[in-house]
C-alpha cells in the first residue's frame, strides 16, 4: 500500500505523465494540421472553406480589436504623461506609447482577444461536432477532418492575427495621440518626430512576426481542445475554458521567448537604441 509522501509522489507522476502525453498528442496534431494545410492550400476547394473562416476571424473580430487597441493606447498615455511632464519630457510621449503598442501591446492584445472571441467559438464548434459524432461521420465518409475542419480554421487565425494586430496598432497609436496631444496639449510636431525616431520598421515587423506565432498557437490550441473534447455539454464547456486559458498562457510564454530573441537580433543589427 502506498501512503503518505509515496502516494503523493505517484499521483504527481501520473499527473505529469498525463500532461506529457497530452503535449505529445498536441505536437502530432499540430504537425498533421500544418502538413494538411500545406497540402490543401493549392486547392480551390480549400479556399471555399477558408473564406467563411476568414470572415469570422477577421471581419467579425475587427470592432473588438479596434476598440481594445484604442483604449490600451489611451490608458498607456494617461499613466505615463504626468511622469513625463514632471521631468519636462512630455514631447517624448509618442516614442514610449507607440513603441509599447507596436512591439508588445498590439500583438499580445490582438492575440488574447482572438483567443477569447475566436478560440472559444472554434473549440465549442469542434467540440460539439466531436460529441455529436459529426467528426466520426466525416471520417466514415472518407473525409479527413484535419484537412476539412482544422486546416482552414488554423490558417485563418495564422493569416489574420497579424493583420488585426496592425489595426490594433493603428487605433492604439491614435488613442495615445488623442490623450497626449488633443487632450493634454502636448505639441503635435515633436510628438510624432520622436515617434519616428524611436519606432523603426524592425519594431513594427517584430510585432507582426509575433502575431503570426500567436495566431498559429491560438488556432491550433483551440482546435485541439475541441477535437479531443470529452463527451457531453459539460465536456464542451470545459474544453472551451481550457482552450482559452492554455492559449492565453501560450501567447504570453511565446511573447517572452520571442521578445528575448528579437531583442538580441535588434541589438545585433542596430546596436542599443534609446527611446528617450
Amino acid at each position, binding site marked *: 500500500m502506498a501512503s503518505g509522501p509515496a502516494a503523493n509522489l505517484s499521483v504527481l507522476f501520473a499527473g505529469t505523465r498525463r500532461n506529457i502525453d497530452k503535449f505529445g498528442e498536441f505536437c502530432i496534431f499540430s504537425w498533421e494540421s500544418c502538413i494538411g494545410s500545406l497540402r490543401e492550400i493549392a486547392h480551390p476547394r480549400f479556399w471555399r472553406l477558408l473564406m467563411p473562416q476568414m470572415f469570422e476571424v477577421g471581419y467579425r473580430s475587427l470592432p473588438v480589436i479596434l476598440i481594445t487597441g484604442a483604449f490600451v493606447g489611451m490608458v498607456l498615455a494617461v499613466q505615463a504623461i504626468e511622469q513625463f511632464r514632471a521631468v519636462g519630457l512630455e514631447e517624448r510621449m509618442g516614442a514610449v506609447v507607440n513603441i509599447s503598442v507596436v512591439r508588445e501591446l498590439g500583438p499580445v492584445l490582438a492575440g488574447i482577444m482572438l483567443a477569447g472571441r475566436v478560440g472559444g467559438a472554434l473549440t465549442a464548434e469542434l467540440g460539439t461536432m466531436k460529441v455529436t*459524432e459529426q467528426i466520426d461521420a466525416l471520417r466514415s*465518409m*472518407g473525409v479527413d477532418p484535419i484537412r476539412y475542419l482544422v486546416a482552414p480554421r488554423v490558417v485563418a487565425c495564422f493569416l489574420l492575427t497579424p493583420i488585426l494586430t496592425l489595426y490594433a496598432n493603428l487605433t492604439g497609436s491614435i488613442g495615445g495621440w488623442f490623450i497626449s496631444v488633443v487632450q493634454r496639449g502636448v505639441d503635435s510636431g515633436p510628438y510624432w518626430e520622436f515617434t519616428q525616431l524611436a519606432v523603426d520598421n524592425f519594431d513594427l515587423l517584430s510585432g507582426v512576426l509575433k502575431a503570426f506565432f500567436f495566431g498559429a498557437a491560438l488556432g491550433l490550441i483551440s482546435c485541439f481542445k475541441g477535437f479531443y473534447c470529452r463527451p457531453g455539454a459539460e465536456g464542451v464547456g470545459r474544453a472551451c475554458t481550457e482552450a482559452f486559458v492554455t492559449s492565453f498562457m501560450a501567447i504570453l510564454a511565446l511573447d517572452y521567448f520571442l521578445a528575448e530573441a528579437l531583442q538580441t537580433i535588434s541589438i545585433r543589427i542596430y546596436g542599443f537604441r534609446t527611446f528617450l
Partner: protein
Amino acid sequence: MPATDAANDDVLIELRGVSKRFGTLTVLDGLDLTLQRGQTTVVIGESGTGKSVLLKHLVVLLRPDSGEVYFHGRRVDHLSEDQLVEVRKRFGFLFQMGALFDSMTVGENVAFPIVQHARPDDRQLEETVAQKLRMVGLDGLQSRSPGQISGGQRKRVALARAIALNPEVVLYDEPTTGLDPVRADVINELILKLKRELRVTGIVVTHDMTSAYKVADRIVMLDKGRIIADGPPEWYKTSNDPRVRRFVDGHANPEDLAALDD
C-alpha cells in the same frame, strides 16, 4: 447453438479476436465475427455492451487494441487514414444520433458525400439528393436545417446521407429507435429493398425485436464484449438460453428487480 447457413459463403468482413478497452473498461473482448456478402446481420444486446463500438471497428473509426479486421480479405485495421478512404467510400454509416452536420441544410448533408468524392453537375446532384430523400420519405425538406426537423426525421435524413454513394455495405446503428411504428416499418422495408435490389450487405444494431425479425438473415447477440448467441431469426423465437429469452421477451434481470426492493 446452430451454425449460420453457409450456403452463400463469400465473406465480406471478418473480425478476428478483436479487443477494445477504454481505460480500464473492456468493451470488446476477443470478438470473432464473419459477415457474409449480401446478408443482413442484426446485432442485438443491452445498452452499453459495445454494439456501436463494434460498428465503428468495421470502418476503422476505432482501431482494435488487439485482433484484426478484414474487408474483402484484406486487412484494414492498420491502414492509414489516407489509405482507408477507398475502403470507407464503400460503406454507408448511419450513426446512432444521426450525426448530421448542423452547419448545413438537409439537402447539403445528403449531397455532402457525393460532392466530396465525385463531380456531379448541379442538376444531377439535385436529382440524386431528391431521390435519396424520397427513399426515406422526406423529399421537399432539402432547405431545412437539421435543427428544424424532428429527431426521427433527422435519423431518416442521416440514412439518406449514408446511402448517398450507393455503398456496398450499410451500417445501421439503431435505425428505428425513436421512430413511430409506421415509420419504423418504412425503414425496415428500405433495408430489405436495399438488400434485394442493390445487394447491399447490412449490419443493423437494434433493440427493436420486431425490426430484427423482419430484416435479419442472421442475428448475433452481444453481451459484455462477447458473442453469446448467433443464429437465424427463427432460432431466437424458440431458444431456451435464459439471457437470450430475457432480452428477446423484454424481461428484467432478476438481480435488477431485486435491487428495486432495497
